[in-house]
């Protein structure tokens, strides 16, 4: 029995084959437009900013993914990049900038410090921006490699397309901790807090 092969909507649109028209839903089209036209607001506070510049520069070229235009006014931007450590003194500023952004808006935590505070476990720093504002995608790394940032942006685009607002993490493609033959030393602590 011959199987009827139905081309997907993407194929119909891209190749023009099959039926002469495609049906979709308005929300899908809106999400498609939103994910490829992210206006970004870079909130750069620390050394991760250098890596952010690398990503936006020509070699890795964030513009390929539609996130080309930085807007240095939160009122004109959709995507807030929090790049670097946020200290307690700066937390009201970050919250205010987030509140000034118009819906729909997304937040991307760039690097370990913005995600969980990193090793700045002290009186001065916020242990991750999600303590202050909701966060969509966490990109681990100190700083993250540009590939990880591109992964994070594509992850965010997937989430925009599916309408999923649950936080997501860019997982490393290769985790050295899982490979003991590489000799990576991780500090493990006992009950009293002393290394074991």
């Amino acid at each position, binding site marked *: 029995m011959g199987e009827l092969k139905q081309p997907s909507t993407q194929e119909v649109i891209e190749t023009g084959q099959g039926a002469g028209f495609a049906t979709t839903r308005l929300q899908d089209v809106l999400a498609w437009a939103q994910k490829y036209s992210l206006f970004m607001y870079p909130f750069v506070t620390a050394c991760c900013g250098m890596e952010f510049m690398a990503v936006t520069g020509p070699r890795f070229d964030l513009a390929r993914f539609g996130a080309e235009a930085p807007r240095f006014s939160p009122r004109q931007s959709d995507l807030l990049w929090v790049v670097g450590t946020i200290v307690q003194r700066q937390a009201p500023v970050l919250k205010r900038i987030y509140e000034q952004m118009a819906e729909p808006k997304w937040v991307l935590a760039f690097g370990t410090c913005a995600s969980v505070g990193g090793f700045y476990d002290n009186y001065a720093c916020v242990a991750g921006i999600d303590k202050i504002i909701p966060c969509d995608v966490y990109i681990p790394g100190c700083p993250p490699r540009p590939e990880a940032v591109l992964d994070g942006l594509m992850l965010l685009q997937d989430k925009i397309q599916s309408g999923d607002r649950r*936080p997501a993490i860019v997982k490393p493609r290769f985790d050295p901790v899982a490979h003991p033959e590489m000799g990576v030393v991780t500090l493990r602590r006992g009950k009293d807090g002393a290394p074991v």
Partner: protein
Amino acid sequence: MASLLELLKSELGASVLETHAQYGDETAVIAPEAWLAAARLLRDSPKASMEMLVDLTCVDYPDRNPRFEVVVHLLSLSKGHRLRIKCRVGDEDGDDAKIDSLTELWGSANWSEREAFDMFGVQFVGHPDLRRILMYPEFVGHPLRKDYPANKIQPLVPYREEPGLEKLPPFRADEGMPFGRQSFDRVGEDEQPLVATDQERMR
């Protein structure tokens, strides 16, 4: 090279409490009453002519009385020599830590003294604008004192109270951040992770 310490001793006498010199690295501990006079002598005396105050900082020795040690590094640009002077202030609780400000002698003392005040609570008498420089004005206490709780935070913005937020982001060792604050790294599987919640830390 011991001439600087000898100069100080001959001019100030008993106000020089201690001296130390090793490998050309000289230190003098000055009594708090003579602090400003010693600094002025070191700046104006043609033998010393310390034109530059390189650094002013503070050390907390919680077991000592006086508790704080204000440390100043001086440099003579014309003569090319350096000197470290110290002064011990403050009682065991850290109160009454008063010392004369050096801002009238070196402008670079201004922000350094503000930092020492911010971090340790040492009062610099005669400082033109003694207020916090790093921490926010609402901050209570002085964070680099040894008796400030190591994991105490004082947020300006109330933290979000989202259910399950303490689990966000769930960075485990296999997710690339084993050194993060919310580390779930632990020894036995039945033990709780050794991480204070933020509610506990704010108390």
